[in-house]
């Protein structure tokens, strides 16, 4: 609760600072604000409300989301003089935090909109045609998904049992699960790299947390979710094989990881710690990859541009390789344990087929990641 108040204050301050053209202060305002918001999650002060719930679950998600955003923001060197977007980033983060803490369906709807509407603008904040195209696609498909989610809510109020199904579909769209993933690669590719990183880490984790909370109300869609999870894993891994754009490649890798997280979501609250760990491992891996690539002087979206990077920047490459191998699930990196937990839980519940597909998907995605790593070692 306090974190949301602090973040709102920082967002408004940041907007005022921008209007007063205090450009060089804005980095400090936003940075310190994010740290303060993280600290505020440990403050027990709560305004009584029936719309939001601040239990251990939502607080843990909140800390993770704010932490990732803060690290992402601190790694971003290219925004000097481009701080107009800070306020929007903060407001989007508030939406993400609300999505982990709603206890009324109205709050879920508002959280999704608070999360998405700033992102439509942020996706289009680049100068290129691609950025505008990404923004427009995101806007149309995002609003369409929200409308479907709302229709689900309305049907639920009218007593039609299929309502919750539409809400789940609307949330799966935000998660980027196959077959609702079509917007993901286009939007990730077109957006400026720092917002791509924000979308692929914070937004994805928030959507997963929101879906987990919604399903914890007792809607049983386990077979459907496991089905979506299985096709997401395998299709995400397969489509990543032939990508030439880094951001698009990360989008498909994220779809595959979303599949793994959806399995854990489908298994219910029993496996919640594993879901948390998976999200943490995925977030850290993506953070390392995006952080290091974005920290280069000129971000080039072509995978080919990284040819021989190991011989030019050995330290950066080692970090990048560690991040990639963690995402691939190579022991002893965190990604391995995360994937192992998914397999262990699924096996424990007797879902042998899902374990098989998950293993196959991990195999394909390991190949995909190793292919990426090998590019770094090719001499020109």
């Amino acid at each position, binding site marked *: 609760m306090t974190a949301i108040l602090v973040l709102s204050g920082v967002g408004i301050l940041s907007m005022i600072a921008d209007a007063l053209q205090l450009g060089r202060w804005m980095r400090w305002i936003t940075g310190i604000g994010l740290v303060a918001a993280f600290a505020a999650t440990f403050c027990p002060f709560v305004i009584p409300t029936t719309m939001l719930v601040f239990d251990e679950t939502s607080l843990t998600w909140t800390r993770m989301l704010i932490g990732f955003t803060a690290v992402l923001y601190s790694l971003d060197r290219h925004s000097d003089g481009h701080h107009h977007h800070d306020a929007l980033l903060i407001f989007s983060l508030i939406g993400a935090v609300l999505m982990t803490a709603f206890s009324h369906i*109205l709050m879920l*709807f*508002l959280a999704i*909109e608070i999360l998405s*509407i700033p992102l*439509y*603008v942020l996706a*289009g904040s680049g100068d290129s*045609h*691609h950025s*505008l*195209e*990404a*923004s*427009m*696609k995101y*806007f*149309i498909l995002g*609003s*369409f998904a*929200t*409308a*479907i989610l*709302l*229709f689900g*809510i*309305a*049907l639920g*109020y*009218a*007593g*039609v049992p299929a309502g919750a199904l539409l809400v789940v579909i609307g949330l799966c769209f935000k998660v980027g699960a196959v077959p609702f993933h079509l917007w993901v*690669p*286009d939007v990730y*590719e*077109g957006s400026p790299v720092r917002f791509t990183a924000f979308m692929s880490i914070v937004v994805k984790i928030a959507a997963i947390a929101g879906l987990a909370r919604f399903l914890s109300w007792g809607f049983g869609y386990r077979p459907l979710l496991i089905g979506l999870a299985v096709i997401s894993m395998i299709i995400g891994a397969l489509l990543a094989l032939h*990508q*030439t*754009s880094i951001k*698009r490649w990360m989008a498909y890798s994220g779809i595959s990881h979303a599949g793994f997280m959806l399995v854990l979501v489908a298994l219910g609250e029993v496996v919640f710690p594993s879901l948390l760990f998976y999200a943490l491992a995925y977030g850290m891996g993506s953070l390392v990859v995006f952080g290091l690539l974005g920290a280069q002087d000129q971000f080039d979206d072509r995978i080919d541009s990284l040819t021989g990077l190991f011989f030019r920047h050995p330290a950066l490459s080692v970090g990048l390789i560690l991040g990639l191998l963690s995402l691939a699930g190579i022991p002893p990196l965190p990604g391995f344990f995360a994937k192992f937990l998914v397999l262990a839980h699924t096996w424990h519940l007797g879902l042998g087929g899902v374990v098989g597909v998950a293993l196959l998907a991990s195999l394909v995605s390991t190949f995909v990641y190793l292919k990426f790593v090998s590019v770094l070692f090719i001499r020109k």
Partner: protein
Amino acid sequence: MIPTYSYLVLGCILFSIGTLGVLIRRNVVIVLMCIELMLNAVNLILVSVCEPVFVFFIMMVAAVEVSVGLALIARVYRKFGTTDISTFGQLKG
């Protein structure tokens, strides 16, 4: 007295028209209008089942969405010179 379910049916029909419009129309402005139609179909259903608070929030959010959407469309028109959806074909793969 019109029974409640008839509003539900009307809402569903309006929502379907909106969905169809989003899927088949090529002009972005029309697509935006169709999304608004979908939201208003939802509003109709919610009013008929006595959830007025929800409706206020949806109206507010819809207004925000339209303002962002129209700003984006204006930028698209300035950059591409058209609002046809088929201009958005550069990102694919």
